[in-house]
């Protein structure tokens, strides 16, 4: 592999007075799959949003293919070939499934290729083909998730930022989605940055893993080594099932009553 496509340097992002990203640096190489793990509120989604331009960082730089993209308008970032499949679906609820997919290819003009890709998405998710004229807002949660991913694929990105793609999908579909991602990565060479709660599948797919906590990266290594790590096993892969409980019960106690 080798060449760095995405280089994040010392990013700080805020929601008003709240600091959500506290100086994050990481590199993604061409053709790599990188996964970001972390507890709730660690700032994973914020990190992806900052990359795709949905949020502006206050400090730091993001280089994509050597050029700065931080603080750019999101559609320009998309124009460079970065697609963000957001957390929580975000489909266009009053448009049909088909129209949603058409919009996925908004930046493209190669009609024939678009049609091929649409067919590809329909092959991946046959239910979408069946429901092509249904308004996206009335799809079930999982169906919307499929649509969001399919729509992301329609962009033919160089790099995909996936925010919890397995959210609300059935176990069977989770397997399928990850198989698709793997194929895309291997066959088309699409670089990926993946945020997942389902750490096991994520680490299996990924080459590199980062662990975030309260806005910082606290651990980074290859996925193989991360999977061996005791901490990762305990907190993200769910090994010591019973021990954790008693601890958590009195970890945070009331300060007043």
């Amino acid at each position, binding site marked *: 592999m080798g060449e760095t496509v995405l280089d994040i340097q010392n990013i700080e992002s805020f929601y008003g007075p709240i600091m959500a990203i506290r100086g994050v640096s990481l590199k993604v190489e061409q053709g790599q799959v990188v996964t970001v793990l972390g507890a709730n509120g660690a700032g994973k989604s914020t990190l992806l949003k900052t990359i795709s331009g949905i949020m502006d960082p206050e400090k730091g730089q993001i280089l994509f293919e050597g050029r700065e993209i931080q603080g750019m308008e*999101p559609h320009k970032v998309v124009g460079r070939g970065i697609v963000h499949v957001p957390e929580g679906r975000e489909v*266009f609820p*009053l448009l049909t499934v088909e129209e949603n997919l*058409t*919009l996925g290819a908004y*930046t493209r003009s190669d009609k024939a290729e678009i049609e091929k890709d649409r067919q590809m998405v329909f092959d991946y998710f046959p239910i979408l083909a069946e429901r092509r004229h249904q308004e996206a*807002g009335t799809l079930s949660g999982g169906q919307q998730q499929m649509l969001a991913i399919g729509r992301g694929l329609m*962009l033919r990105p160089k790099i995909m930022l996936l925010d919890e793609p397995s959210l609300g999908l059935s176990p069977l579909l989770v397997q399928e989605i990850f198989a698709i991602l793997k194929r895309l990565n291997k066959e088309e060479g699409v670089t990926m940055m993946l945020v997942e709660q389902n750490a096991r599948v994520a680490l299996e797919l990924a080459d590199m893993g980062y662990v975030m906590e309260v806005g910082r990266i606290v651990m980074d290594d290859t996925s193989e080594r991360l999977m061996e790590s005791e901490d990762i096993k305990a907190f993200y892969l769910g090994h010591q099932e019973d021990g954790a409980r008693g601890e958590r019960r009195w970890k945070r106690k009331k300060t007043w009553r």
Partner: protein
Amino acid sequence: MEVVQLLVSGLANGCVYGLIALGFVLIYKATEQVNFAQGDFMMLGAFVCLGLTNAHYMGLPFWLAAPLAVVIMAVLGYLLDFFVLRHLFGQSQTAVVILTIALGFVIRFVAGVIWGHEPQTLESPLAVGDFNLGGVVLGMADLAVIVVTVLLTLCLYQFFQRTRLGLAMQAASQNQMAAYFMGIPVKRVQGMIWGLSGAVAAVAGILFASKGAIEISSGLLGIKAFAAAVIGGFGSLPGALMGGLIVGVIEPFASYYFPAGYSQIAPYALLLLVLVFRPHGLFSQVRIKKV
């Protein structure tokens, strides 16, 4: 005969309402913003054309002045978005509502300073000449209004339905963030639609002015056009035309058949009636959220 006459002039008027309503709906469809200054836009469009063409002002030929006015209003609409509304991007719709109401104040003030407060008449070739079809009279301007409105509605409808940009505009109104993720330049798209609605307002204004005199407070008409858009189902282009026609037709019939004092209530009473039975207009664009 009388009924036909009432119907025909009602349709012509309805088209004026429909044209203004079209402006409302355009903006709503593409941004979900509501432009309370649309009526004032129309007034401004009319006065711009008047300023260009009337002998007292610049005296350009009408057929040059009218398209020029449309272009000027389109540019104004775009600039308005660029310099003002864009700063409210992502802010609640109420903020835009208040902003456009205040904008109406400013537009009326500026227009008053430039063109004065007295009614004026546009020197329009459409203003002269009537068709008399077996006792039913139809003014040239009426005919023009009907033709232009129907054509414009059709074109815009096709635009939203068939073109990529039209689809992108709808997407941008439903989920700005997701639209950005698709690479849609949401802000620019918004500017374009404000420009477009400025142009539509100018067309409406020119046609309206050709039907009679205009004055600075002619923008008041916007409220009735607003009602028309809502009757049609805010966000639906054919709905806007339909709503306009309904309001337009109900008026002459009400003034003919209802006693004085009651007739002017008709459009608003009708509006309330429609909303009681169809809370989101005839061509409803509102859905129940799936949870």
